[in-house]
Every structure is written in structure tokens, then in C-alpha cells.
């Protein structure tokens, strides 16, 4: 691999340069950690400790109080608002990240190894059939019938008039089209998505959140993993084919193990996105599936932000992610090879 041990690192340093480097690194560590420290101390403050001006050190500047932690964590309190959103966030975040990784990695692999020449016209016809089917469902037609009708109409049209269209797309067009979906601001698409899930009776279910997050994260997965798969030499796959392996076997046994760093790094990024997402959750989740960002935002009540509660919630939210970042650190830098392909 191109990643070498530090002993051969070309960036060797004199003692003075080392000192300056450490000074800058420590300064930046302070910049990163101080806000987190402030969250921690604020979580132990009473309202009056916040409003009386900055107080930095518990027990010295103020008497720490566990009131916010007890409010949030006490499981015997029937009015507890914390645990359900917490588990919802973990479940939805992890499942949607895994799902988008599985689906997206397959697509990314296919885009680097197969040649596609689809006709945009056919995709458009397919899309129209899909919309038609959705409309039928909305109008009360059983969904199986609607889907069947849509599929049949598509094949009739595709066989009937498909050959008339000449324009084709290639792999980078498909990739660009898929990736460009990331451009959509959530506000643009959320109202139709809300109505879609409402028609399907899926509002306020974890499935709706999982599928939506999967859709918003797929472009990122494809973008990252496509660039990663391009760095994997294809000779290994070729020799496996000579030995009679199938494409799925090759993907599963040779490509995926080689792509572990990329998969892990992408998983973490995607997990962070769906873990922290706010706008879509605001629409799609209700009493049963409230997620943590909503709960955090909700602490800004009529009386203004409840700083102590916000601090507790943000700390509890970020802890699992920090834990994972520490655990998987060695994969992260190795796995993000976007744009690194030399062709």
C-alpha cells in the first residue's frame, strides 16, 4: 500500500519545528476541547449559576448539581423523555447507515467494474410509470395491483418505443446523476416525502426515517466508495474469475475485505449524518419515533434554552460517536480516498 510507516515519512523535523508544531497542536486541542468542557460544566449548573456570569470550575466557582442529569436519566420517572429518543436515534442511525452502505457499496462497485449504457428516455418512462403507480395507490388501488400495472406498462412502452431513442448515458453520467442528489436541500423535498409516507401510512415509524436517511446518504456512500474501489487493483479479481468464481463471490470474498477501511470510514461519516439529522426527523417522526436532535432542539422552550438539559443531551448523544471514533481511528484516514484516484 502507499501508506508507509512513519519511519520513512518524508516530513522529518528539527527540534524547533517540532516544538512549534506541538504548540500549535495543543492550541488547537484547546479550541476543540474547551467548548466540550463548557458543555460538561454547564450540565452541572443550576439556572442561577448560568445567569450569574461565567463560572468555570465546579466546587470552586459554584456548587455542582445533578438536577439536569437526574431529570434526563432517571428511568423510574414515568415522565422521562430521554431514553426512547436515545434508542430510536441509535437504532435508526445504525440501521440506516448499514443499509445505505450495503446498497451504495454495491452500486459504487458496479459503476467501477461494469459498463452501463442506459437511455435517459427509458429511465424517464420508468419514472413516469412509478409516479403513475404511486398515484394509483394514493387513489385507493391496492398497492400490489398498482405496482404490477406500473411494471407491465413500463415493459410495454420500453419494448414498443424504446428503440426510437438514441441518446445514452455512460458510467460517469450515472455517477454524477446519483451524486448530484446530495445537492438537494432537505427543505426542497421534505413536503412531498411527508405526503408519500403519509399515503403509505408510514409516518412516525422508524422505517420511514431509515429509508429517508438511506436515500440522503446513498450519494455520499457512492461518491466515497466509488473512489475507493478504483484504488483496488483489478488483477486480483481477474485471477479469481479465471478460477471460476462468480461476480458475487469476488465481491464478497475479495473486494469487500480489501475495502474494509473505506467501508468503515464511510460508515462513520454516514452514521454521523443520520445520527444528527434534524429537518427530516422533524417532519417524519412523531410521538413514537422522536429522535435526539429533536429533543435537543426542543429544550429551547417558551422560556428560552434550558442550557443544563441541552448540555446533558448533547454529551450523551456524542459519547457513542466519540467511542466509535477512538475505536476505529486507524481506519478513518486510510479509508477516505475520495478524489485520490490517479486514473
Amino acid at each position: 500500500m502507499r501508506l508507509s510507516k512513519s519511519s520513512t515519512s518524508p516530513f522529518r523535523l528539527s527540534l524547533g519545528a517540532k516544538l512549534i508544531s506541538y504548540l500549535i497542536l495543543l492550541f488547537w486541542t484547546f479550541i476543540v476541547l474547551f467548548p466540550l468542557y463548557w458543555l460538561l460544566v454547564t450540565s452541572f449548573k443550576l439556572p442561577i449559576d448560568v445567569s450569574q456570569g461565567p463560572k468555570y470550575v465546579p466546587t470552586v466557582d459554584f456548587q455542582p448539581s445533578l438536577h439536569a442529569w437526574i431529570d434526563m436519566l432517571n428511568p423510574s420517572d414515568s415522565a422521562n423523555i430521554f431514553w426512547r429518543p436515545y434508542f430510536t436515534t441509535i437504532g435508526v442511525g445504525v440501521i440506516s447507515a448499514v443499509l445505505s452502505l450495503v446498497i451504495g457499496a454495491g452500486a459504487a462497485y458496479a459503476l467501477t467494474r461494469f459498463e452501463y449504457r442506459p437511455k435517459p428516455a427509458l429511465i424517464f418512462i420508468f419514472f413516469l410509470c412509478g409516479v403513475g403507480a404511486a398515484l394509483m395507490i394514493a387513489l385507493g388501488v391496492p398497492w400490489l395491483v398498482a405496482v404490477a400495472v406500473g411494471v407491465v406498462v413500463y415493459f410495454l412502452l420500453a419494448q414498443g418505443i424504446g428503440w426510437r431513442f438514441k441518446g445514452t448515458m455512460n458510467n460517469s453520467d450515472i455517477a454524477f446523476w446519483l451524486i448530484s442528489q446530495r445537492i438537494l436541500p432537505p427543505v426542497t423535498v421534505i413536503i412531498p416525502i411527508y405526503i408519500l409516507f403519509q399515503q403509505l401510512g408510514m409516518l412516525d415509524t422508524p422505517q420511514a426515517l431509515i429509508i429517508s436517511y438511506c436515500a440522503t446518504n446513498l450519494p455520499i456512500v457512492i461518491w466515497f466508495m466509488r473512489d475507493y474501489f478504483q484504488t483496488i487493483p483489478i488483477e486480483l479479481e481477474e485471477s479469481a474469475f479465471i478460477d471460476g468464481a462468480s461476480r458475487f463471490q469476488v465481491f464478497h470474498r475479495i473486494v469487500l475485505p480489501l475495502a474494509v477501511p473505506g467501508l468503515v470510514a464511510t460508515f462513520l461519516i454516514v452514521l454521523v449524518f443520520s445520527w444528527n439529522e434534524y429537518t427530516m426527523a422533524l417532519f417524519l417522526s412523531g410521538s413514537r419515533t422522536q429522535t435526539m436532535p429533536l429533543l435537543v432542539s426542543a429544550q429551547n422552550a417558551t422560556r428560552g434554552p434550558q442550557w443544563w438539559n441541552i448540555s446533558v443531551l448533547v454529551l450523551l448523544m456524542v459519547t457513542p460517536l466519540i467511542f466509535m471514533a477512538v475505536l476505529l481511528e486507524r481506519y478513518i484516514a486510510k479509508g477516505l480516498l475520495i478524489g485520490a484516484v490517479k486514473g
Partner: protein
Amino acid sequence: MRNLRSFLALAVMLVLMFCLFSLASAQDQPYAGVTVRVLSFTGPQVTEPLLRRGPDFEALTGAHVEVTTVPFSDLYQSILTDQATGTNSYDAFVLAPQWLADFVTPGYFADLSGHVASDEAIQWDDIAPFFRNFIASYAGGVYSIPLDGDLHTIYYRTDVFADEGLEPPKTWEDYLTVAAALNGKDLNGDGEADYGSCIPKRRAGQGYWWVLDVAGGYLQSQGTGQGAFFDTQTMNPLVNNAGFIRALEIYDETTQYGPPDELNLELNDTRSLFLTGRCALTIDWGDIGSLSIDPDSSTVAGKVGTLLMPGSTEVVDRATGALVPCDETTCPYAIDGVNHAPLAAFGGWGGAVSAASAPEVQDAAYAFFSYMSQPAQSNVDVTMGKTGYNPYRLSQTADLAPWVAAGFTEEGAADYLGAIEASLNSPNMILDLSIPQTQRYQQVVLDTVISQFLAGEFTAEEAAQQIYDQWQEVTDEIGRDSQQEAYLASLRISRDD
């Protein structure tokens, strides 16, 4: 082939996980009987008592109360989308009375007049008439059960005023004078200069109500039925006149006597500034009274005075838009020559019941709100700062005992309740706007333009013209006639009483 199979196995496992997860969340309802799903906003204010008393109510009636909270700022949208799309994930809603027009018109809420008429425990007549009308009623029906009563009053530091020999303000000019005099003085003995007046002016906060507080005394002098937002004849906004512009100038001047970052302060911030002794004057809802006696939040217990909203000695002549001095015809309700028009800002929270829920669920939901509103519960809740409930029953302002028991001094309680009572009894009280799409008039147009004005992007005249133009546009978009009808209906409510 074997590997294809294990690949499929992975997919199946994922699908299974997916299903298990959905199952786990679907069967999370271990309670038998009726479940009332209440939508509220995250507290502790307002929601805390619902959560606290829910189990008691269940023990009494067997109905399980499930409270969901969304951010305060998203509550309106959550109710609207839930009802408009027929999702109906909730049976009952905690809501602001200003939204009733938007929700009652399309038929989202159940008319509760029958329930109220046959319910003695709620003691309907004990609820102050103003709240019975403004919070509860719309278009002749009862759609919301009052849980809280909200109006703005002035809070000031009695000790500081006594030391400096200052009189509490009666007019807005007085307010500016005392704020200027006290700004920069050390008010809490920590050796640092403090502020004369603290008003939350943050964009997308609730700052627009404070402008209306100031403008009220200039705009409305002929009693509640006159209205302070639109001309009842033409439905033209009452903003591009000398009175509103004068109010904008006063509002802008108060910034000079406040904290430097006042333009980014929310209610929470100004409250904590006042409660830690850093402000001489503030305008706020009743919460501040009960919070001031809570040692976890306040260092000014026993030093807080409460006042009727200041007024003006000049009022707008609606024919010309100019200011005319107060006399017996122009200001029939003036006190000592000053026209006061206290604003029922926001008005108070109420509970409404979804018309789409099953009848027995509707009954249970009503019973829950009734239980919350009954004096046995609410007279205790209003004395607790954290509930965010402020007095709305006659028995709550008449009886000092629960307030003293909660930690008020006798004198403080009398002063606090006296100012609230005086506002409630004022024949010239301003009804907050309650017509379809009130949000767009106030939270979007008014809030944005006021913020632009305070940031110096507009002069007072330009700001008034902007509000006027944009309000006209909203009115025309929705329909001038229907909006005028709704506005008149909202004012007529008070005339009938």
C-alpha cells in the same frame, strides 16, 4: 453459489433487524384502556404539570395519558401537518389561542361546549371572563380549555426605585426617563454597571409582542372592541400612523438603556438578567413573579414590583393617522389622563381535542384537560415557577394564601396579583391578533421588519410602511373579506360579554 447465499443471508438479517426494530417500537404500549395522545411542546413549562399529573389522572380514570413534545417553535406546524394530512397521530393538543382560527375553520378541533356545560368540577365561571373568551371560544363554540393565563406587565426593582427616589413609570416617556437614569448604575452590589431596561429583541424569538406593548397605548383608546391591528372598516393595518411610528422610536430607544447584546437576547436571557439583579426594569409575563421567589433562579426575592403597562397621553386619530391629545372623547378609559391599553400578549395556553379521534378518546382527552384546569390542581400549579402557568382564575388572584405558602411575601403577592387583576379588568385591554394565518402577520412579517428596523436597515417610517405593505399583501392573498370577517368576529367576542 454459496457466497451468493451468504450475501443474501446478510440481506435477510438486515431486513430482520429492521422488522424487529419496528416491532419493538410498535408494542411499546403496555397500558390497557383508552390512551390519550397529547401533543405539547418541550418544557418544563406547561408540559411539566401534564407529565406530573398524568399518572394521577390515570389512577383516577384509567385513561393513559401519553405526552409528546416538539420544540415550541415547531408546535404550530406539527399540529397543522398532522391534521391537514389526516395523519391523526394525536388526540389532544396544547396550543396558543391565536392559532384557533387556523385550526377551527378547517374543522380540526372538537367543539367542547357540551362537555363544559355538563361538567361542574371545572368551575367554568371561576375562569376570568377574558380568558374564557379569548382562549376558549372561537366562532361561538368552545374549542380549548384554558390551562394558563398570559398577559404582559412591567416588573421593576422596588429597592432600586426607592433608593434613587424614582416613581414607577406611567407613560412610555416615563419609562425611558427612569431607564436612562438607572442605566449604568450598580443594581446588585457586585461593583459592575448594570442596565436600565431589558427587553428580548432577538429575531425569531417573540420580540414582536414587546413592540405591540408599546404601541398599544397609542393605537387603542375606545375599549377592547376597537381593536389595535386593523381598521375595522377597511381592514387596512393600523401601522403607518404617527402612533405606531412613535412606538417604534421608543422601542428603539430602549435598546440604548439595555445590555449591549440585547438584539440577540431571548426571554430566557432577559429574565435571568432581571432575576440576578442586573436590570432595573423589564416587561414580561406573569412567570417572573413566581420565579423571583425561587432561590435556584433568583437573587431579587422580595424586591420585585409589578405594574400595569404604561400608556400614552396622546392617541392616534384613525381618520388622519396623526396623534391627538387625550381628553374625555378620545380616551374615555384614561387613568389620570394616561391611556393604558394592556396587551394580552399570547393570551395563555389551552388544551384542544382532535375532532378526528374516537368519541371515547375525545371524552377522555376533555376529562384530562378539565382535571388539569380544576382549581384543586391549577391553583397549586400557578404558584410554581417551573410550571409556566400564570393565574387565569378569579379564585387565583383573589386568594393570597397559596401564594404566600409558595414563598411570596404578603405585600409582594398583593402587588403582583393586583397588577394582573388591574390589567384583566381594564376595559381597554388589547386582544392579541387571532385570525387565520396570524403567524404570518406576526411571526414572519412583523418580527422580520422589526428586527431589520432595530438593526438599522430601516427608519421608523420605512419600517411602518414595510409592515403595512406586507400585511396588505398577506390579507389580499388570503382574501380580504374573509379576513375582515374573522377579525371582526375575534373582536365581537369581547363585546358580547
